[in-house]
């Protein structure tokens, strides 16, 4: 059993550490789906799929709702925030790169200046 210490972050990492669960998120990003249709799509048993969905649900990535005999899954707020998170992650990566590039550019300017002076 996974230990859930600081809920959101740990839960998300654990939830997304599995390829099938990432596939489910991807799938639900396109359209809501029932557990049965997800089980079909990923060629798993209903019980197996229910377990995966539960993990995603506890992490806030997926929300489920039972209507009649069908349990429908859709992306939770956290899943919907994925795009914003991705953009922010991208921005941070490039910010770090460009800050490093900035330093190298200063060195290059310095060297060019030194050469011109000599």
């Amino acid at each position, binding site marked *: 059993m996974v230990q859930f210490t600081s809920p959101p972050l740990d839960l998300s990492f654990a939830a997304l550490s599995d390829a099938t669960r990432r596939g489910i998120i991807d799938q639900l990003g396109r359209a809501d789906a029932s557990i049965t249709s997800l089980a079909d799509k990923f060629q798993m048993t209903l019980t197996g799929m229910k377990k995966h969905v539960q993990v995603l649900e506890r992490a806030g990535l997926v929300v489920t709702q039972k209507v009649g005999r069908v349990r429908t899954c859709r992306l939770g707020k956290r899943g919907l925030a994925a*795009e914003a998170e991705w953009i922010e992650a991208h*921005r941070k*990566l490039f910010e770090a790169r460009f800050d*490093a590039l*900035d330093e190298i550019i200063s060195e290059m300017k310095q060297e060019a200046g030194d050469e011109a002076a000599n």
Partner: protein
Amino acid sequence: MKQQIDTHNRTAVERKGDRELVITRTFDAPPGIVFRAWSQAELFRRWWAPKSVPGGVSLVSCEMDVRTGGTYRLEFGAGGPDTMAFYGKYLEVVPNERIVWTNDEGEEGAITTVTFEDLGGKTLLSFHEIYPSREALEEALQGGAAALPEQLDQLGEFLSGEGK
């Protein structure tokens, strides 16, 4: 203490239309210098995988032949034997102006274009990623799910290794 951040020179990322992501930043040097830092492997490798990126990921090899028709191959590692390779071909290289390359490591990879615009001694750098289809961009963005996983896997492994 919270530091006041000057947003003037900062890195901006925006989604443009259905298939494009644009990242911009202004550098305090003319395009010739910025282009050189981008096109010489020994300079490029110093900033493309900066130490401040989490996860201890670094560039273990970096080969680039920056001319139209040339190729590149970058390999990242996190200290272990496994590396992650990124590779492709330069479709167009105009010195001090633009570099266009393919990203061939995945299916439906983006075409990346970087332009260096002269702002009178400064350079406006624009980094565009154009995906072949809306779906391909969505897939990259679905992100939390599809694009972050490798990073999350690495981080997950790192964290679980630390816990033991």
